[in-house]
């Protein structure tokens, strides 16, 4: 299975990445090269195997940790917005989204 230039354009759109045409071409070749080694993985019989997400779950039960649904953080708006590209009156500014 090999990806096409159309696939690259579709994935780049999903990933919200603008790619120049020379970048897309290089990306296509490199990703296809990578998927050659992935084919070996697809051939493995994994019938009946549970996926492993928290690695320590391989040897013991790991419960999903939940905490009380209460506000625990102090208001730290100024510090939190210090590195924002565009802020006005404590709000993050984005281009107009509703006409």
């Amino acid at each position, binding site marked *: 299975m090999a*990806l096409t230039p159309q*696939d*690259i354009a579709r*994935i*780049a759109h*999903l*990933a*919200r*990445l*603008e*790619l120049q045409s020379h*970048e897309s071409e*290089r*990306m296509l070749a*490199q*990703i296809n*090269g*990578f998927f050659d*080694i*992935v084919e*070996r*993985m*697809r051939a*493995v019989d*994994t019938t009946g*195997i*549970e*996926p*492993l*997400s*928290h*690695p*320590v779950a*391989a*040897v013991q039960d*790991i419960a*999903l*940790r939940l*905490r009380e649904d209460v506000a*625990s953080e102090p208001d*730290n708006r100024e*510090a*939190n*917005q*210090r*590195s*924002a*590209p*565009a802020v006005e009156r404590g709000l*993050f500014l*984005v*281009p*107009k*989204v509703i006409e």
Partner: protein
Amino acid sequence: MKALHEQSLAELALTLRDKEISAVELAKHFLARGAAHEGLGAYLAVNEEVTLAQAAEADARLAKGDRATLLGVPVAHKDIFVTKDFASTAGSKMLENYRSPFDATVVSRLAAAGMVTLGKLNCDEFAMGSSNENSAYKPVKNPWDTSRIPGGSSGGSAVAVAARLAPAATGTDTGGSIRQPASFCGVTGIKPTYGRASRYGMIAFASSLDQAGPMARSAEDCALMLWAMCGPDPDRDSTSLELLPEDFSKTLGASIECLRIGMPKEFFGEGLAPDVRSAIDGALKEYVKLGAKIVEVSLPRTELAIPVYYIIAPAEASSNLSRFDGVKFGHRAKQYGDLLDMYKKTRAEGFGDEVKRRIMIGTYVLSHGYYDAYYLQAQKIRRMIADDFQNAFKQCDVIAGPVAPTVAWKLGEHGNDPLADYLADIFTLPGSLAGLPGMSIPCGFGAGGMPVGLQLLGNYFAEGKLLNAAHRFQQATDFHLRRPEGF
């Protein structure tokens, strides 16, 4: 008195306690070394004022008779940990000059232990890379041969320790990013069991794999640092384990008589360079002299770890890195049309090539119709790999082998071939996928006089045993004491 930059962490702490030198003078000594060797590219940020203020605070605690083990001892942090007082960039243009409103848990734990921060260390962008050439700022040079890479992604950390610019450093390991640069630069590093160190404030790459750990000049120093860095962080890291910090120093000297060392036959195949093989064989012989027994074990899915890792890590990265959209922090494109265009241009400008590649791979394998075939399949094989380790640990106490198939390669050597870097990760990826603790300790020299590291892998929570095995080796050998000429 032994040169300050040759003293161990424990020796430095004692020197400070005995008032032979102040924490401020000690910090100045290391800042001066960092400045003198700026050409190595190890540091991304220093701030003398902040460092000296922390050191003065340590001096005040010392004067009051505070005997905290690491009080006043300097450390430098990989620039993947966020810090209030230094810019935190993750080696990316996306976060140029970013100032975090808080410190990472690992950073605040070490600060509470009294350690003084020297600055932030260079790394591959978002910790993605095996050569440090993916840093958006500058490459890092290996002090053993400045035409070679230091390894990655914690390349700045390894170089700072190897060139004596810092007595110890923090690193992070997702697929080998502590062990491989430690091996390439001749320093000691340990990645603990997944979940032992808090991930809070570690800029996320692949959340089910990322782990913090220390890099230093000996197992003894790593034991001290690891003890101070680790511990539960239940309110801030959903995957941190309820394991109390252990005093790893206590068991360092235990006998390793009859320790069973597993040698995975898959780590010693054709792909292993003869110079590395001979250094590893020498290390195993040394272990036999120390009373250990070598047994052959099998990790049959070693090769599969490459595609499995390079599916899982990019998948998680594509999700984690979606937060960089030019709204709340970081870079925003100067010119754009609508919101969608702003996202796309911001991300195109802010991310480097390798990060874009991994975001693309990750987005694809998580997209509709491909999730089961790639991501889920990879997570299933991940369990098989973890089970293979449990089988191996029935026959042995620790596993030993090479960290990487070769010594550090030349800057630019892998050029435009990302696959060459991926394949070189083969021996560190299986342990990462299984979430096991792993170390690299200097065990010899290979081609071009470059250092070779021995990888030690332990079962879950067996950091104490690993550090013990590493320390006994370092008591009998002097590879960890060698230093690159001119440093």
